[in-house]
């Protein structure tokens, strides 16, 4: 009798806890707020059949993807956007190739070498994929120097940054840095500390690292002799590796005398990072601080972009007085031949919406990008995205994207 009572107590505990935890479920099913209908989102982007897709990859694009998926999913009854895992460009490509993601986000388009190493033996070629530009952003050099105000922007050129990341320049008060910034330091009445530089790099395979190393190789080819790569950079003994852009942002914020490369919108999201933002020497000889206008100026120097080769998609270190030299597009990679019609349709509709900006009465992906600190894709790049998506086929070789929007 006592025994059954005890078991009843135990069982009631379990059931009680379950019910308590299930309360949110009951609450949310009754509490979904109905968002206002949105003309652009409604007309061409609604799904008639239910489908669910998930993506993952580049942390460069993570703030954009998270906001976009939430906005789109809330207004599209049949579409379930089951999340974007911000695991890095390398993991995005791996996930796409092994089928765990429906689209992979990456800051550097897929190359045949990537396909060969990530999915050997599967016989994929570049022609099996379509790569859609979905965002345009820049990479800021954020540093943490106690005592330096946010109005002071230390100037760096590619040679100095390359030397820092190779370990050749070890201390903050190295003559190279000091000489370059003589005037700035005098005006601000601060001195560079005699502390070792901790540089922060990515621990995972990162497209952001690729764009960063591409910049170093393009602007300082005699110092940075290795080809651009997503692979983690070699660290010295005091240096820290962060997982994802957010890991680098956190590491720079918490380690004094550190410097790291982060995507620009992470600067806006972490005000304390804005204490130290570097001004980088661009091709026209000017030192530019990252800003949406500067990134836009850089992208404008190369209107024709294609994911085919590095020379065609790289926009680092381009001429322009106000251009910010460390900028890049970020891409979504999908299989050209989709095997599931509903999923494929949702995929192309979503990516089309994501890569376009709306009209004055509606919001599309690029409007959300702007709110998150990215630069809206130029019109011709939006067209490139549309044309690329028109080549994605479903079962029976049907073109999946049907749209009338401009």
């Amino acid at each position, binding site marked *: 009798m006592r025994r059954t009572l005890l078991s009843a107590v135990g069982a009631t505990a379990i059931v009680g806890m379950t019910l308590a935890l299930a309360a949110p479920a009951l609450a949310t099913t009754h509490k979904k707020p109905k968002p206002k209908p949105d003309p652009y989102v409604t007309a061409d982007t609604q799904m008639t059949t239910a489908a669910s897709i998930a993506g993952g990859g580049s942390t460069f694009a993570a703030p954009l993807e998270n906001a976009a998926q939430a906005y789109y999913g809330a207004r599209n009854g049949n579409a379930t956007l089951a999340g974007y895992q911000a*695991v890095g460009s390398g993991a995005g490509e791996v996930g796409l190739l092994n089928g765990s993601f429906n689209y992979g986000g990456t800051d550097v388009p897929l190359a045949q070498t990537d396909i060969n190493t990530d999915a050997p033996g599967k016989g994929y070629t570049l022609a099996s994929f379509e790569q859609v530009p979905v965002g345009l952003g820049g990479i800021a050099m954020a540093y943490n120097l106690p005592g330096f105000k946010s109005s002071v922007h230390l100037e760096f050129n590619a040679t100095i940054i390359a030397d820092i990341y190779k370990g050749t320049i070890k201390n903050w008060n190295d003559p190279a840095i000091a000489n370059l910034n003589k005037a700035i330091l005098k005006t601000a009445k601060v001195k560079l500390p005699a502390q070792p530089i901790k540089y922060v790099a990515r621990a995972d*395979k990162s497209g952001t690292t690729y764009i960063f190393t591409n910049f170093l190789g393009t602007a300082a080819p005699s110092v940075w002799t290795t080809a651009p790569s997503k692979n983690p950079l070699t660290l010295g*003994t005091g240096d820290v590796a962060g997982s994802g852009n957010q890991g680098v942002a956190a590491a720079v914020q*918490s380690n004094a005398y550190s410097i790291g490369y982060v995507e620009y919108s992470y600067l806006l999201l972490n005000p304390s990072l804005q204490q130290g933002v570097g001004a980088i020497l661009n091709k026209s000889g000017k030192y530019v601080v990252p800003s949406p206008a500067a990134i836009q100026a850089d992208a404008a120097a190369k209107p024709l972009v294609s994911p085919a080769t590095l020379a065609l998609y790289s926009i680092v270190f381009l001429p322009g007085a106000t251009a910010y030299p460390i900028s890049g597009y970020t891409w979504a990679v999908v299989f050209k031949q989709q095997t599931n019609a509903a999923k494929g349709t949702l995929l192309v509709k979503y990516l089309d919406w994501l890569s376009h900006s709306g009209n004055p009465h509606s919001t599309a992906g690029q409007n959300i990008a702007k709110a998150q600190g990215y630069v809206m894709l130029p019109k011709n790049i939006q067209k490139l995205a549309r044309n690329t998506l028109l080549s994605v086929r479903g079962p029976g070789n049907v073109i999946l994207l049907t749209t009338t929007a401009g």
Partner: protein
Amino acid sequence: MAGVTDTATQAAPSPDLAEGRPRRSAKSDSVYWITLYGVSGIFAVICIGFLLSVVSSSLPAWEKYGTSILTGTVWNQSTGQYGALPLIAGTLETAAIALTLAVPIGIGTALAIVFVLHSRLRTFFSSLVEVLAAVPSVVYGFWGLLVLGPWFASSVEPWLVSLFGGHFPFQDAPSTETILLAGCVLFVMVLPLIVALTRDAIATVPNELVEGALSVGATRWQVLHKVVLPGARVGIVGAITLASARALGETVAIALVIGLNPNFAHSLDSPAATLASIIATEFQDSTPIQVAALGALAVILMAMTLLVNLIGRQMIRRAAIKVTVL
């Protein structure tokens, strides 16, 4: 009379019953044993599958790199070097820091709770320890990253650097993510475990022994030292084994606070990496050969944990014999 509804035994009262031995009906009880062995067999198959998957995923790496995985000192995915030695060192160092702090403090705490505190306080502290033993590891890591780390970087590490005069083991400039921080976070995680298990072990020492020792004039410490601790030896060794296994395999908490730098840590205040944290951060973006290398790390980690378990069980066996002889 519940349970005796079996017609087989009722229909044919066998001479066995008279001797008190029930007659087992061969065909009906086999269902019982089939279920038991069948379900356990499922579990056994899962365990074998688990072992297989970890080992077989690492085979390509062993084939390609051989023992250089165990002896190499550089772990660099980009250059294709997969030497796990710095990672093994990092794992052992963090576990060593954690255990060096946790074992004496944990045993002392358990002794204090059982023998020094008043009974009301005893229940309170015991419950407190139980609560903390159940806190999930991600919470510890997150607390270490956001609370302990900044405090270490701003106060503790500069003090230690000045204490050691810039020499080993504190000669580097302090970072926030360091081996010391990782070791201390592990210490806080492992401490409630050791305290709880040691307390349980101490409770099994018969009261008569303790009272007997006190009655012949032993001081409190003599009783603890000569009677309680030897008597609880088995449980204490078990506690340390469990704590070591936990310290070696901890993933998420360490990944948050160690800095993920796969080099040998020069000093206790530089970032480093452990086997589990590298597996966790590099797994998802790895090419198949890199996944195999990470599988090799997993095999090494599994071997280390198994070794600790085996050593622990061996010591428990020997300690148990000593106790019975006593």
